[in-house]
């Protein structure tokens, strides 16, 4: 019997091994991960965050629909392989300081006085994030609606800014740990919006914000581009300057979307407005157009004010351009967004500008890979990243996908373009559920050359999760 058992043991030992192929792709080479609870998330931005000077984590800024059906800021952190590390949601959850004096102004709980117990909640819409001194700063806006007694405020939108320590375990942070500072357009006026779209850390240790600000002049509400500087990141209520620029008057609305600090200390602001191009190239003779404004370090318009847009003089069709994202490269900036026509179609655009805002190249890009009839599918661009081969990947959405006998609703888009913004053949690909409104919203390049994209994947019935995928520069897993 012992001989039998010994032989059996040897046989079982021999039959317990596997042979691994060392050249086989690893889970770190490509991945797709879904994150979130059974609610709806809207990712806005992804950044590769360094720790100790080394790229170490991915941070996604998103909005999260909470149990009380309002929207909070949501931060998700993973390692570079997409493995979840921690997350936190937070939002405007404090008294309302209408006149920016630091004290409550509205008796929300109707107890006869205004104290710090007069808590209101806002719908928080993320704009962007920036890292400074081991702290992550988030800018966006919060939209507040209050109905208490005779008091009725609807969609009072204020700029919101918050800071989150990078060293902390975000899973242990609570809304109470993260204070969201808000700022109104005009103190005391709840009808005018102030929206934060982008934030950058400045070389002098300050923070720069851009967005849009509504003003009222003679009963006409006018929206202008907004820029403000916080000189010391420890004191988010103290601004060294807060300025607007744009054309005044009805229908002359501007909005700053992205800002960069230039090596000379000036600020390059990219946004959109209703001013026509005067350059004759990529004319933008109608509708909403893209602008490049260079401001001096005090936020004053100084040089290089340029407007660009899609023009279609033959068909009398209006093209409205909406800037979604931009990246700074050594030779200038690459701006992407969506051009919406008066016929209800949308096409993603990309424009390459030099360091003075001069036009280098531009493309309006319906789908190249998926033709719909005689023209390409409609597209919408929302993010751009530079590859390690110095060309670019653009991500976004096909608002409706109908190609190759496949019909889908919103489908995530991935496209690679060369330095002249022409599509790289074979690099366009689509991702998404057949019934969901899916989209990629932003992209970043990893140290190994992989492209990491963040998107919203719609599983239906109100479940929209954040997805991070790592792809090759050609959009392949």
């Amino acid at each position, binding site marked *: 019997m012992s001989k039998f058992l010994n032989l059996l043991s040897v046989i079982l030992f021999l039959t317990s091994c596997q042979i691994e192929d060392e050249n086989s792709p690893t889970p770190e080479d490509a991945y797709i991960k879904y994150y979130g609870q059974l609610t709806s998330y809207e990712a806005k931005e992804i950044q590769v965050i360094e720790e100790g000077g080394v790229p170490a984590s991915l941070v996604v800024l998103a909005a999260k629909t909470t149990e009380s059906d309002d929207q909070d800021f949501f931060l998700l952190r993973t390692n570079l392989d997409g493995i979840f590390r921690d997350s936190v949601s937070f939002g405007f959850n404090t008294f309302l300081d209408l006149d920016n004096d630091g004290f409550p102004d509205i008796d929300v709980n109707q107890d006869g006085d205004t104290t710090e117990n007069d808590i209101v909640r806002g719908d928080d819409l993320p704009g962007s994030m920036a890292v400074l001194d081991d702290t992550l700063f988030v800018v966006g806006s919060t939209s507040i609606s209050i109905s208490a007694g005779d008091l009725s405020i609807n969609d009072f939108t204020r700029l919101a800014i918050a800071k989150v320590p990078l060293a902390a375990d975000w899973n242990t942070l609570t809304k109470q740990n993260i204070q969201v500072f808000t700022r109104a357009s005009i103190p005391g006026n709840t009808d005018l919006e102030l929206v934060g779209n982008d934030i950058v850390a400045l070389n002098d240790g300050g923070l720069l914000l851009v967005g849009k600000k509504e003003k009222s002049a003679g009963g006409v509400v006018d929206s202008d581009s907004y820029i403000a500087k916080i000189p010391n990141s420890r004191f988010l209520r103290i601004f060294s300057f807060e300025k607007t620029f744009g054309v005044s008057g009805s229908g002359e609305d501007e909005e700053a979307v992205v800002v960069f600090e230039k090596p000379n200390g000036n600020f390059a602001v990219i946004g959109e407005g209703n001013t026509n191009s005067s350059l004759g190239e990529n004319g933008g003779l109608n509708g909403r157009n893209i602008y490049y404004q260079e401001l001096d370090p005090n936020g004053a318009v100084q040089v290089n004010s340029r407007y660009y847009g899609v023009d279609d003089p033959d068909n009398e069709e209006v093209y409205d351009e909406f800037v979604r994202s931009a990246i700074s490269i050594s030779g200038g900036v690459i701006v992407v967004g969506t051009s919406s026509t008066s016929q209800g179609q949308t096409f993603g655009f990309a424009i390459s500008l030099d360091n003075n805002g001069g036009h280098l190249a531009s493309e309006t890009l319906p789908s190249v890979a998926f033709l719909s009839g005689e023209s390409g599918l409609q597209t919408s661009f929302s993010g751009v990243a530079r590859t390690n081969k110095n060309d670019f990947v653009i991500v976004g959405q096909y608002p409706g996908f109908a190609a190759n006998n496949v019909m889908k609703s919103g489908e995530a888009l991935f496209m690679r373009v060369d330095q002249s913004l022409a599509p790289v053949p074979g690099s366009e690909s689509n991702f998404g559920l057949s019934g969901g409104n899916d989209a990629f919203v932003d992209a970043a390049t990893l140290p190994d050359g992989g492209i990491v994209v963040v998107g919203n994947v719609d599983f239906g019935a*109100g479940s929209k999760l954040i997805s991070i995928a790592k792809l090759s520069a050609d959009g392949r897993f």
Partner: protein
Amino acid sequence: MKNFLSALGLSLLIVLNANAQSAAQCARALDEAEQAFEQGRLLYILDKTANRKFYDCLENGNYSIDEEIRARKLLVKTYLFSDNEEEAERELIGLLITDKEHPLTPEDPAELYFLYSKFQTEPIIRLSGKLGGNKTYITQIQEFNTGGTKQYNPAFGNGLNLWAEILAERHLGKGFEIAAGPQFRFARYDVEGNVNGEGLPYEVGNISSMLRLPVLARYNFWYDAKTDENERKKLVPYVFAGASFDLVLNARYEDTSRSGGTPVTLADESSSLSDLDQVAKHNWSIFGGAGIRLRVGRAQVNFLALELRYDNTLFNYINPDTRWDNQEVFIEVGHLEDDLTINTLSLSFGYTHSLYLPRKRKQFR
């Protein structure tokens, strides 16, 4: 009609009576021949005229099996002692055809032992068939997932995890055997996961059919052992080990769905892993196990077998280069295949039939 039935009954009675008389006469003829051998009257035994009944019974198959063995063995011994080895050898072949691996007894003469040793008495080949059910175990080589939870559930007895094989076996001596032959196997593994760890659960069934070509070596314990009554031990335990070349005939998803959100169910026919080249076309396995055989039949040379076996695939079952080629699975359902091997623990029942070609061993021809 009544007359017909009466006539039929009478005829049956006559036939049965005649057979009974014939069997008794054959037994008597055999006894007389054996008595003659004991008395040394070998010529009487070999005289087909004088001993006609003995030979008629043998040629006409009127002996029972035991009587036929006695008769044939008697002829072998008679020819041996008559110095007619050629006829003895011919009769020995007849004996070995009648009684496979005929066991000699201590009472048998040395000359018979000597002659017997010149002949191939073991089977030239054995054919075995097995039918079994298997339980699938997955070994992860590398885990790929979409961030939520994922676990493998061994499936057993769902009607598809069956396998069958036909082996040609050859006994090399002292209980050692080698065997080879085709095997057809269904293997299925089930995965239960959750896309986000809560609220978006999914189920995936991965089923494959394989044509396998196993080659094995087997060691039988107590193969030649006998009981105190000089009979073969009926139970023969064994262990075995081998390797197999596995050809994947088809692989597809079945019962694959996600609930939560807007539920999704993949159509079985549209989810072929083979069509998308998502599994390895072929693989190698090693296997081992143990079993027990029960000798069956009058000669105790055929077997029923009950076997426990573990098959271990050596290389990745999933084609890593096409892992991402089915968006329906990793986006709609939320499932990603790991690098894995499919291993199976199986229990089978089989029958082995021994085939003989009695003849002189090559060195004595």
